[in-house]
Structure formats: structure tokens, C-alpha cells
């Protein structure tokens, strides 16, 4: 290998492959964070379902959807990698006649899906089919995310050093559309009709504990702006 005249070759190579290494490490960390969040959301879905099954006395299908920003090595200040996690639990817990309900908890808001009266396989004493309220099912979801992000960096230099101030503002509005349908056919047959879409519009806000959350209530009135700033000084 002829190295003559090739100064700082390893440094140059690292500059090229270093970014690749950072991306790989970043992906590893994101994966770990995702595992954690998915576990938490699945556990919460189960607990919500247990509570609802107890109060509703019946079969409950509960889905939790949570939007959360993950730490991102390549991301900018206060603009995390926006991610969505979901968990689901179905529980039958009833005494006597059971009811069937379906819930969606999207971040802070709980939505019960519409129920439609449906003929069951059972007949009453008159020979008519017994009717029962049955929740619609979600066959597709659409998400729209509108983000406004602004970052400002200011440097003030004096005789003793430099003071750097970095600040950022973030507005985020998520619109989730749950496409629902209803199976009119009895038994295992399928005959679907579209039901009303469920539209959930939520805005980002900072709660009293300093955590970033989304809720429908935050969208009422002026959209909240989340801010973050940091300052450091380099002395010489």
C-alpha cells in the first residue's frame, strides 16, 4: 500500500463512514425506544379494556393509539421523530347478558365506536331474529400531520467568550380518520356497508408535568405553541 502524500486518510474515511455509523446507531436507539413504547401502549390497552369490560359488563375491544416524538440523533432541536404506536386488547368479562362495545383511545381522548342494531342467529318466542347492538369495525385509518417548526440561534460575543442561545417553537396538529364499516350479514357471511367516518383532530400541548401530549381540547381556540430553549457559554 502506498501511503506517501495521503495525509489524514483515516480521518477522511471516518468523515464519510462516520455519518453511516451515526445512522446505524440512531436506528438502533429508535428500535429500542419503539420496543418500550409498544410495550407500554399494549399494557395500557389491556388495563383500559379491563376497566371498560367491568363497567360495561360485556365484550370490549379496546385500541390505544399514541403519538409520541422519539429522540432522534439526526433530528433538530425540539423537533423529534414523530411516531405513532398502537396496542389492542379484547376482553369478555360479563355476568348474564353481555354487551359488545368497541373503543378507541387516541392520545388523551376516548371514542366509543357507533353501534348498529343487527339480527343475530337466535330467534325469539315469535320466531323473529333477536336483535343486538353491534359496534362497527375500523377497516382503515388515515393520518394527516401538520407541523410548524421554527428554530432560532443567536450568538453574543464579548471579551470573555461567546454566549449561544438556541430556541425553538413547535406547533403540531394531527388529524386521524377512522374508516368504519358494518357487516349486515348474519353468522360468518360478509356483507359490508360503510358507516360514518370518525374524525379525531388533536393538537400538541405541554401538560402540567412538562410532557408533550395531544388532545382535542388543545385545538379549541388558538393552537398552542410549544417552546424550548437552551443557553450555553464558551469562555476563553
Amino acid at each position: 500500500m502506498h501511503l506517501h502524500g495521503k495525509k489524514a486518510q483515516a480521518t477522511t474515511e471516518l468523515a464519510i463512514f462516520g455519518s453511516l455509523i451515526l445512522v446505524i446507531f440512531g436506528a438502533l436507539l429508535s428500535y429500542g425506544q419503539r420496543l418500550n413504547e409498544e410495550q407500554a401502549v399494549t399494557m395500557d390497552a389491556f388495563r383500559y379494556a379491563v376497566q371498560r369490560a367491568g363497567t360495561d359488563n360485556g365484550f370490549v375491544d379496546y385500541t390505544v393509539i399514541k403519538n409520541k416524538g422519539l429522540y432522534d440523533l439526526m433530528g433538530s432541536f425540539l423537533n423529534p421523530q414523530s411516531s405513532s404506536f398502537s396496542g389492542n386488547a379484547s376482553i369478555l368479562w360479563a355476568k348474564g347478558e353481555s354487551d359488545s362495545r368497541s373503543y378507541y383511545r387516541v392520545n388523551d381522548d376516548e371514542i366509543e365506536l357507533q353501534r348498529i342494531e343487527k339480527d343475530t342467529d337466535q330467534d325469539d318466542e315469535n320466531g323473529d331474529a333477536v336483535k343486538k347492538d353491534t359496534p362497527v369495525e375500523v377497516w382503515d385509518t388515515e393520518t394527516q400531520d401538520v407541523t410548524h417548526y421554527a428554530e432560532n440561534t443567536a450568538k453574543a460575543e464579548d471579551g470573555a467568550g461567546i454566549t449561544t442561545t438556541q430556541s425553538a417553537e413547535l406547533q403540531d396538529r394531527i388529524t386521524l380518520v377512522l374508516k368504519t364499516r358494518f357487516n349486515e350479514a348474519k353468522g360468518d357471511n360478509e356483507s359490508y356497508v360503510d358507516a360514518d367516518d370518525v374524525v379525531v383532530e388533536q393538537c400538541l400541548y405541554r401538560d402540567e408535568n412538562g410532557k408533550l401530549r395531544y388532545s382535542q381540547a388543545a385545538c379549541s381556540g388558538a393552537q398552542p405553541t410549544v417552546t424550548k430553549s437552551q443557553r450555553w457559554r464558551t469562555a476563553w
Partner: protein
Amino acid sequence: MVRERAQVTLEACLIFVAIVLFLFGIMQVWLWLDVNIADRSHSFNLTRLDAGNNPDREAPILLEDYYTARPLTEDTVFNGEFSPPETLKGEYNGLETSIRTYKEQVADRRNLAGQKKRFSDYHKPKKDNQEERDNSEE
């Protein structure tokens, strides 16, 4: 220009150290995530019965009611030391809702023994039993 021999090798050595340190830092963060998953599972199982027997049913027993992630600190990344859970949520009905990490378990055993021992020291009784059996055979 003076010929600089093995410059690439020298630079690679320096950079390699930086990469390895960085890798160890990432591994510690991974371990922290791992401990969180184990802690959360442990807490979830401890509160399982209460979640079902919850008489009020005004609200479900959720993770945020009884579990707080251990803080990720510089000590965790650089020294591998895990902080205990931040609040009293780490205890539920008198039971610890966070697991003890391997290092903590070893430290506990050292404290109980009242002296510093290596982890392998705790396997000594097995050896003693073997010696007893050997003696009895004789």
C-alpha cells in the same frame, strides 16, 4: 515533504478508540431501555389482581399510576450505574415495582455478607458439599 509512515494506522487507532467508546455508550442506553422493559413487566404483573378487583372502576389502573422509568443519567451511560426509580411509584402496596439489576443484586449480597466478595464466591457451598460427599464416600 517528510514521509509519514503508518499515518493511516495511527489515525485509525485514535478514531477506533472514539468509536468503541461511542459504542459502549450506545450499549448502556440499550441496557437502560432493557431494564425499563423488565421493570414495566414486573410492575404490570404486581398490579394485575388490583386491576381486576378495582372496586371503584372510575379509572383503570394504568402504568403511569405505579411506574416511573428510571432516569437516564450520565452515570448510566458512562459508568453503567442505574438510578433507582424517581418517585414512590417504585413501591406498590409495599412491594418493589422495579426489579434489581444484576449489579444491584451483587451489591445487595455484598452488603448482606458485610464484606466485599466476588460473585463467584457465592458458589463455594456447592464445592463444600462436593467435598463432604467425597469425604463420606471414603
